[in-house]
């Protein structure tokens, strides 16, 4: 099963996603794929906060800022039916893929690369929960690179919600079901 969870900054989406995967992960090993890279003190604190939220919930963390499919071989449990993944989050993964050193310039290549990676991941685990981000509603016109980023994230969200069994928006901590079907 694949569940995609979206929401804004401070919406409670991470916390909801953790509860969600914990609920469906009976008898499975829980992996947390972390895509965020740390560049400064604020990033460090953000990661600490998330680590504290996860502590005691038995997640095994895999750092995977790019090439998300490479996380598969890092899992110590080899039976796909015995592992579940919480991937957090799509907005960081895309930023890393777009703005890291080996930049792929083509919009479609980036979209294909990421969605292919997610598909592979989905096939190799029992349940996959993906956290993405609602960055689409501030009405601001940014520089070209940022607008391109927003556009691509929107397209990726569209594609992923097609293959997801369930899509949920978290609003002030409350889940609002966007796509239901399990």
């Amino acid at each position: 099963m694949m569940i995609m969870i979206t929401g804004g900054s401070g919406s409670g989406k991470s916390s909801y996603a953790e509860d969600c995967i914990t609920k469906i992960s009976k008898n499975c090993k829980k992996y947390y794929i972390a895509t965020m890279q740390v560049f400064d003190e604020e990033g460090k604190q953000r990661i600490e906060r998330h680590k504290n939220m996860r502590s005691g919930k038995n997640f095994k963390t895999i750092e995977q800022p790019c090439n998300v499919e490479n996380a598969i071989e890092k899992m110590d449990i080899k039976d796909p039916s015995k592992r579940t993944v919480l991937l957090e989050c799509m907005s960081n993964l895309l930023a890393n893929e777009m703005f890291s050193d080996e930049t792929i310039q083509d919009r479609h290549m980036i979209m294909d690369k990421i969605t292919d990676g997610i598909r592979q991941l989905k096939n190799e685990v029992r349940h996959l929960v993906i956290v993405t981000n609602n960055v689409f509603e501030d009405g601001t016109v940014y520089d070209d690179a940022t607008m391109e980023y927003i556009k691509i994230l929107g397209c990726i969200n569209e594609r992923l919600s097609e293959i997801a069994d369930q899509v949920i928006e978290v609003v002030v901590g409350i889940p609002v079901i966007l796509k239901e079907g399990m």
Partner: protein
Amino acid sequence: MELVIGGYSQGKLNYVLNNYDKNAYQVYDGASLALGTLEKIATENKVVILDHFHCWVKERIRQGEDPESEIMDFLDQRFEDLVIISDEIGNGIVPMDAFEREYRERTGRILVMAAKRADKVVRVICGIGQRIK
């Protein structure tokens, strides 16, 4: 307590006012609340509508204060006949400015806490309210 959220200019206040008789409520604007007003509001006889709550949060953060515990204390004193209206401000690109980032995050988390305590949460879009709790 009822929490009403939604994007900028979505008709949240009108949505709320439509539910009440003209003489039954008093609107307080979070964008211009004088210091100490929350204490006064707590004993207001009419229904309290606290509009632009996010602006109040922003100002308290700017002053280096602790809006998280202030609002929780306020809710301990005043919970019945209270409507809190706030913009949803987290659905955009992470701001470059550190203060704006902090404001967004903390406002979001405060709203999550408020929603947890609320009897009812409504999200207003195009003037239409969707009850989500």
